[in-house]
């Protein structure tokens, strides 16, 4: 039998010739820089490359890349739940990009963890040395398992493109158990990221410290994860030249005001029940940041998403998504970095380079998947330019 060419055997696996603009080139450079600095950090050590110290063991990588990154990746489990568990099939077109976004975010969070850990080569110790009292032990396990679940949830795209019928059949048969596992694992570790901080009552500012942090983290992850899906889809549509599914997203985000509303009621209510509102009256940086976070990151997106005109407008929905994501990031950074008691800290240029670089690397991975896999409609001839 004559050997057929690769492209003849796997017609779907061709390189889709989307335009390569200065934006993506800039992102490639950022990603390469970030990876390079990460390698340099492994050789030189944390002391030489970061501004972390004995009085400040966690910095930007933990509060932004890890805590915010995982929170923003929650769209993968919420969209999967909406489509497969709640059986709202009209949202199916959103599932694959949402799962891909989640998968990439988890890979990046795991990679940042390897950059941040003092002994990254021992990450597998989580498998053999157990401590069920440790929130981080649970997070480690959930992230490992959930990243595997996401890989499996995304695998049909690859199997379809390759035309592999048997693996596809197996995955299809276990789709629902996978989705249920994904929802359960996400609920566990999204809330446990909050639990992780509850053991620091003397270090976290009272405006952020709360026994309800596990619930706060879970609720904000649900809202911001969906927002991230909107944000990502809007930019994919623009970048790859296909229409943005505005109607679908306006319908999906209707749930966000309820989630944010519950979160807002609990957070504000708690301040008054416990008397912690006094810290708002004291003023100063914590009070200012609290108001920025709550007004900018919760109330404004709540009103935007609740307002039909805004949510059914492409600019409106994307701005609302942007504010929601910003609210989650501010919350994580405020509680785990800015208002965590400890030595003075400003991220070093290496820390910033890794953070920006890995975020860029996420875009690169997404872009590569779009170019090589049948994720989105084929590019239209007029948008195609030679690579």
């Amino acid at each position, binding site marked *: 039998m004559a050997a057929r060419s690769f492209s003849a055997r796997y017609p779907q696996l061709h390189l889709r010739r989307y335009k390569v603009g200065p934006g993506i080139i800039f992102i490639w450079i950022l990603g390469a820089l970030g990876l390079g600095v990460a390698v340099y950090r492994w050789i030189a*050590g*944390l*002391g*030489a490359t970061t501004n972390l*110290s*004995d009085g400040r*063991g*966690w910095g930007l990588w933990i509060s932004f890349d890890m805590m915010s990154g995982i929170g923003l990746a929650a769209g993968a489990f*919420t969209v999967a*739940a909406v489509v*497969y*568990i*709640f*059986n709202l*099939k*009209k949202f199916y077109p959103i599932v694959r990009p949402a799962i891909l976004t989640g998968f990439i975010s988890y890979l990046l969070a795991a990679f940042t963890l390897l950059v*941040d*850990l*003092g*002994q*990254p*080569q*021992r*990450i597998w*110790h*989580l498998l053999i*040395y*157990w*401590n*069920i*009292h*440790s*929130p*981080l032990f*649970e997070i*480690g396990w959930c992230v490992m398992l959930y990243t595997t679940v996401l890989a499996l949830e995304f695998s049909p795209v690859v199997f379809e493109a390759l035309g592999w019928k048997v693996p596809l059949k197996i995955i299809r048969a276990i789709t629902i158990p996978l*989705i*249920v596992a994904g*929802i*359960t694992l996400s*609920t*566990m570790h999204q*809330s*446990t990221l909050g*639990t*992780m901080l509850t*053991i*620091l*009552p*003397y*270090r976290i500012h009272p405006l952020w410290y709360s*026994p309800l942090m*596990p*619930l706060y983290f*879970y609720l904000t992850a*649900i809202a911001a994860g969906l927002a991230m899906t909107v944000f990502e889809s809007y930019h994919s549509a623009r970048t790859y030249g296909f229409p943005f599914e505005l109607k679908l997203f306006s319908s999906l985000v209707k*749930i966000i005001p*309820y*989630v944010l509303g519950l979160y807002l009621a609990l957070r504000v209510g708690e301040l008054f029940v416990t008397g912690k509102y006094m810290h708002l009256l004291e003023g100063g940086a914590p009070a200012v940041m609290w108001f920025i976070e709550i007004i900018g990151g919760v109330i404004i997106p709540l009103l935007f998403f609740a307002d039909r005109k805004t949510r059914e407008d492409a600019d409106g929905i994307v701005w609302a998504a942007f504010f929601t994501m910003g609210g989650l990031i501010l919350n994580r950074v405020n509680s785990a970095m800015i208002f*965590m008691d400890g030595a003075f800290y400003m991220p070093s240029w290496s820390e910033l380079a890794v953070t920006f670089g890995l975020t860029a690397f996420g875009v690169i991975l997404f872009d590569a998947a779009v170019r090589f896999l049948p994720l989105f409609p084929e590019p239209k001839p007029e948008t195609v330019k030679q690579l």
Partner: protein
Amino acid sequence: MAISRRDFLKLVGAGAVAFSLPASRVQAKGRFVRAENSHAMLYDSVKCVGCRACQTACKARSGLPYEPDPTGLYEMPRDLSANTWTIIKLYDGPQQDAFVKQQCMHCIDPACVSVCPVAALEKTPEGPVIYHGERCIGCRYCMAACPFGIPKSQWDKALPLIQKCDFCADRLAAGGKPACGEACPTGALIYGSRKQMLETAHERLNADATYFPHVYGETEAGGTSMLYISNVNYTNLGLPKLPEKELPSITWPYMAAVPAVIGVMVTLSTGIYLRTHRGENGASKKKEE
């Protein structure tokens, strides 16, 4: 909306179940009794003359390098670090001066042990909180969780470990004394069972009204193996004011609720799936919108 409300109820329910578990409360009551015979030390800041013999004895015993200043001259370290596991500091107060010795407090129920994801830190029944460096992944959660700010990282190394006082667990196991206590020439730092140390501390407080009327470490964060008496308020000595509640009891109810969370989420997801897919089978799947 359904997701958030459902989850809220689930978390509240699971939390309530976990909080009502009697185990942790009983444990807390018996905590001090169980620790009575464990190793402890008493530091009397009034008797301390600040000679730092303990500090040097500690370095000698643990083989820790001295820390030079940037010009290469050896000088006194200013704070605890990976290479300085104990340090004497002086509080220069308006009325009174007081020395203070810092080192790991060897809590009865330590936060560091509770948070370590790979169980690299261990509270031994004998008293010392010891560190299994070969397990450590370097996440530094212990550094964040310790209310006394004790665990330190080897920031200058490519593969850093956590370092802290280990209460000379090896010497204690061999029937010896902790190096710092053995080196103390004034009796400011004495060693014995926790019960003995508390008795001695209270005797001294009762005999001399100039002491600040509290034994630091008796109840702080659930009690520590290192106990302090002083003539000044402990907050001046860098010893934080802490309630009796042991830190691991904050996170444990959440962790104990994890099996319940799994059960509830699996049941709910499956239940909703079955409900929303009622009447749907293989043959009619294509008819769904």
